[in-house]
């Protein structure tokens, strides 16, 4: 229909039937003991497993007909495990899956229609070359004898694939490897990601290249938002053992300083400690304190309990096995401001996503991973040095329940945007402004998030806080297919697939498949590199 002069086209979104949903009630069995599917650590065959409680901890046991019994610690604290499961939510998956279901999870990646979540953060491995030789590395770059390295145009196509994902394009992408910063087109790739409008572009790095200030500034100029910095604590010997290099701590400190100095503002830095029992678990509190002392540049600490690989007996595994439950207990013991109850599982945030999606009539990313995959809290530090966890002035459970309730009320009804917004403000009463740290207007920030739903409104929140997070990536001993199905951290592959983190690096180990497909022998690569350097 053509509009006549003076007629105004009605905006269809002003009054819309709000049916949008990014979460749904979970169909996960949250009781104990429970059955699940796992993999044999020897042959990777799919086998039934049981998750059960014992001595206030949670264990997994399974039996492979060919390789026998396996038992492992699944979660180090029963109470936290059970509390976290009360917040379980499933996502709605992807509308445009790239593979069909032919076998079963995790052999059909991906993503297939069985996957419950949409990707929240996507890794892009651009090279398996590295400037370190870490014995604990997944990618194990140089030892493999082949080079996997993607060219710029190929990576650009992979980024475009992410932009076309429905219902939600992942807001965060992370260049990874190997060491992504040594790729010759790395800056160009960041620029492309920026051009495509990804709100959060980050790099997972050992930091060696960022010890050069000019390079760090170049990353900022290209459009990088965040440095995801390997940071294993303050003991030099840990770096020597885990990373195979001396003086690496000094390098990390220089990187943090460079990230602070860059213009126009400090480059947001996330410390990423890989934690092993008996190696650096005694430093987790100190690492958080260090983050709080450097809040102008360090935005988060994201602990990663180690994922064990290779053939290791139960007793040996238990020497190093470290779970989210253990981490939370250690953080409580090693700091004077944290309690166990300050931590919540990741899907809590998905309730807010659901509300914002309903209000704005547009799907927003929802982190609907399995409750055992991760945990998080926020810390606020005031000028007098006092540290306050968010739970001391926010009723997180109330906020979670109310967000879901309001979303439910809005959905399926003809609501104007303004009415929906006003209704959503009901959640603000779960913030006790009187108990909030001085100068922090969390109600205002949350209001802005509900009003604008942009990254900028979220950034106001993040820059005043330290996010403490943890993700425990699985290994073959504690593998739970229910976790894979709900994964929100994926890899995009050069052949156009999206693969959950723990299927890519463990389980079917798509990493090996993908790298073999796109790699060339190391010697051949060296010859090509030499020719290119010679200008041939």
């Amino acid at each position: 229909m053509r509009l006549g002069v003076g007629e105004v086209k009605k905006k269809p979104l002003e009054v819309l039937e709000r049916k949008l949903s990014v979460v749904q009630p979970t169909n996960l069995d949250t009781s104990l003991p429970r059955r699940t599917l796992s993999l044999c650590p020897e042959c990777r065959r799919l086998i039934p497993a049981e998750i059960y409680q014992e001595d206030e901890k949670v264990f997994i046991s399974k039996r492979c007909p060919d390789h026998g019994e396996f038992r492992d610690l699944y979660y180090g604290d029963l109470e936290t495990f059970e509390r976290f499961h009360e917040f379980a939510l499933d996502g709605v998956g992807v509308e445009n899956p790239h593979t069909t279901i032919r076998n079963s999870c995790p052999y059909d990646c991906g993503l297939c229609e069985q996957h419950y979540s949409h990707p929240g953060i996507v890794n892009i491995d651009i090279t398996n070359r590295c400037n370190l030789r870490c014995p604990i590395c997944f990618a194990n770059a140089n030892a493999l004898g082949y080079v996997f390295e993607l060219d710029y145009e190929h990576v650009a196509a992979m980024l475009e694939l992410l932009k076309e994902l429905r219902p939600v394009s992942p807001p965060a992408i992370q260049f990874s490897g190997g060491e992504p910063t040594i790729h010759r087109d790395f800056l160009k790739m960041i620029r492309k990601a920026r051009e495509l409008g990804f709100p959060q572009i980050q790099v997972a790095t050992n930091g060696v290249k960022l010890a050069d200030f000019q390079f760090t500034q170049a990353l900022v100029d290209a459009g990088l938002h965040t440095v995801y910095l390997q940071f294993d604590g303050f003991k030099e010997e840990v770096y020597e053992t885990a990373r195979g290099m001396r003086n690496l701590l000094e390098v990390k400190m220089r990187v943090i300083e460079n990230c602070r100095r860059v213009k126009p503002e400090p480059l947001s830095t996330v410390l990423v400690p890989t934690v092993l029992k008996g190696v650096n678990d005694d430093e987790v509190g100190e690492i958080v304190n260090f983050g709080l002392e450097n809040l102008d540049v360090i935005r988060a600490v994201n602990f990663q309990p180690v994922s064990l690989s290779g053939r290791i007996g139960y007793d040996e595994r238990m020497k190093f096995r470290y779970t989210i439950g253990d981490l939370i207990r250690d953080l409580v013991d090693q700091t004077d401001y944290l309690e166990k109850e300050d931590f919540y599982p990741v899907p809590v945030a998905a309730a807010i996503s659901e509300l914002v999606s309903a209000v704005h009539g547009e799907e927003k990313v929802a982190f609907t991973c399995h409750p055992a995959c991760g945990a998080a809290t926020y810390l606020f530090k005031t000028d007098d040095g006092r540290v306050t966890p968010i739970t001391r002035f926010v009723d997180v459970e109330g906020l979670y329940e109310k967000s879901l309730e309001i979303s439910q009320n809005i959905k399926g009804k003809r609501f104007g945007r303004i009415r929906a917004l006003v209704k959503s403000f009901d959640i603000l009463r779960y913030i006790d402004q009187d108990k909030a740290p001085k100068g922090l207007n969390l109600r205002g920030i949350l209001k802005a998030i509900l009003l604008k739903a942009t990254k900028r409104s979220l950034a106001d929140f993040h820059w005043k806080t330290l996010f403490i997070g943890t993700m425990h990536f699985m290994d073959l001993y504690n593998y739970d297919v229910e976790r894979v199905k709900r994964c929100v951290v994926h890899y995009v592959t050069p052949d156009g697939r999206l693969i959950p983190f723990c299927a890519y690096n463990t389980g079917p180990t798509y990493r090996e498949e993908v790298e073999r497909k796109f790699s060339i022998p190391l010697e051949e690569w060296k010859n090509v590199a030499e020719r290119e350097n010679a200008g041939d």
Partner: protein
Amino acid sequence: MSLREKMLETENLDVEGIISQVEKDGMEDLINLGRDKDFRIRWNCARIISYILERDPEKIKELKNLLMEMLSDHHRLVRNWASISVLKVARKRPELLGEIAEPYLERFIGGDDYEKFDSLKLLEYIKRNNPKVFEKFKDRIVELSKDDNPVVRYQAKRVLEE
């Protein structure tokens, strides 16, 4: 430990040991295991074959029939690794692919997105060497250059441009 038992050690697959044993005893056992009823055995056979063919593409003459079967295997991981094996040969010695190329493309080019990608990768390698097959699939490549998946589109355009 028998070759079959070794093939059950997926996580710690002794690639070099198995290849040495195959070199010593011949391909027959490997080929038989490639038709085993257990997918883990077929999967690991396909993994081993990818290494063998990367080092010596000529060996495809002995493995051709098995690879053809593996490309139709009901288990995705077996098919994926068989495809990698074919691509390894195609990259180094496309002329050795002979009659495999066409059925490979017929099976994969209408598959999932990554299988379409693999087909296009194969076409990139064999384009000059096997113009007849390339011409046969040219219309399909043009179609794929407008595919919904940007990675498939990228590879299709690359094949058409080169």
